[in-house]
């Protein structure tokens, strides 16, 4: 569907993103302290930890949206799929659902942008009129658009920050299955508080406590 669909995770030794002893200092306290992490192609990694531990900060450093105060970052190549925690604000409410999903490929000037987006939306947002403006949909539907958009991306990595938090419990298992299938050989960094997300989608878990990563080795 996106040129890499497959049940296998296509693992290679290629490192798609990494952090080495990264620290990020906030105005009042450290947001991340001594965090290390290596993501290889095909990795399915869960990033867990209590609220405020620095999970989203770590993701933003990996994405290059936040510069580290110390440490080395190997940023992912462009085209990363990203579901931010503030998924609703990340959508383009004046665009249609379809155009939102197609966005990463429109940015990449890909001719298959709308075909891939339609196929993904049909699986992730069944029954939703794809011509509707994204701003008119419910919170759960908006989060599903953000998820579909991330899966339509062209890079080697998808970072999803609590991507199922607003989605109805009855739909989560189905969506996890779709994510698993659509990821193909891409790496996944999944930030979650839900044990079912970890069990269904991830092979490795990294715990972040007070900004320190535990169990981050590959």
């Amino acid at each position, binding site marked *: 569907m996106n040129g890499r669909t497959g049940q296998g995770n296509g693992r290679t030794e290629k490192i798609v993103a990494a952090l080495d002893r990264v620290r990020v200092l906030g105005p009042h306290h450290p947001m991340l302290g001594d965090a290390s992490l290596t993501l290889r192609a095909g990795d399915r990694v869960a990033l867990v930890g209590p609220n405020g531990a620095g999970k989203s900060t770590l993701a933003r450093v990996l*994405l*290059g*949206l936040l510069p580290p105060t110390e440490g080395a970052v190997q940023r992912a190549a*462009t*085209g*990363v799929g*990203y579901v*931010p925690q*503030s998924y609703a*604000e*990340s*959508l*383009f*409410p*004046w665009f249609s659902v379809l155009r939102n999903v197609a*966005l*990463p490929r429109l*940015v*990449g000037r890909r001719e298959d942008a709308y075909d891939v987006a339609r196929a993904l939306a049909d699986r992730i947002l069944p029954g939703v009129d794809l011509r509707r403006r994204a*701003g008119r949909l419910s919170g759960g539907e908006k989060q599903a658009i953000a998820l579909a*958009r991330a899966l339509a*991306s*062209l*890079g080697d990595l998808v970072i999803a920050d609590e991507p199922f938090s607003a989605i109805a419990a009855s739909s989560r298992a189905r969506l996890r299955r779709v994510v698993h299938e659509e990821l193909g050989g891409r790496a996944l960094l999944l930030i979650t508080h839900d044990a079912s997300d970890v069990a269904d989608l991830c092979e490795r878990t990294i715990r972040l406590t007070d900004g320190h990563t535990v169990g981050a080795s590959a």
Partner: protein
Amino acid sequence: MTGHRDAPSRGASLLALAAAIGAWWAVAQLHVAGRPLVAAPVATLGALSRVAPTLGRDLAATATRTGVGLAVGVALGLVIGVLASILARRAPVIEGLLDFARSVPPVVILPVCLLAFGYNELARVATVASGCVWTISLAVITAASSPRSARQEILEVAGTTPLRALVWTQPWESLGVLVVGLRTSASSAVIVAVVTEMIAGAERGLGARVIAAQIVGDTEGLTLAVLATGALGYSINVALRGLERRVRRFET
């Protein structure tokens, strides 16, 4: 259920309207220096048929002056705002200078415009525009200085350039701030247009009509001109509030 809730609300509105007309009538009974402050409602309505054609022409003249001045002010304000937003990153004092310019009451610019352009339409429109241009410029600066949005981040992460991400997002995300600036500018434009007509004079216009009615002691005509000015300002405000509501809905 809705019908039950609407009935008392409509009744209360009619009551409030009647009270307002009653208050108007009461004020009309006040006499200062042997003359009424304003004409009574019935007398004003009676005068309407007499002055309607010329009042309509004056209303149209002021509305046109307001609209043209506002359009020129908005166009200039957008250009100045974009340039100032770029320059203000290196020289933050620019925002302070624009704020200073906005703080100058537009009507004091009128003599400057009269000196520059003479007693003509250009001077009046330029004065109206001067009341809008700084408000719009500052609205553009406010919009441009907003932190990088989640949408821009998504586009950058997807691989687009920061400039392209800005072009895809900024115009849409700025709409809310710009419409608020437009509404503020429009309110100011009506005031400045009428005051300019009163001070600098004009062949046609509500401001000129107010002064003319005051000079000849035409209380009914004066009251109608005041009401027409209020109606013009209110109509523009209602229209722009509607536009603002649409933009807010569009944004989310």
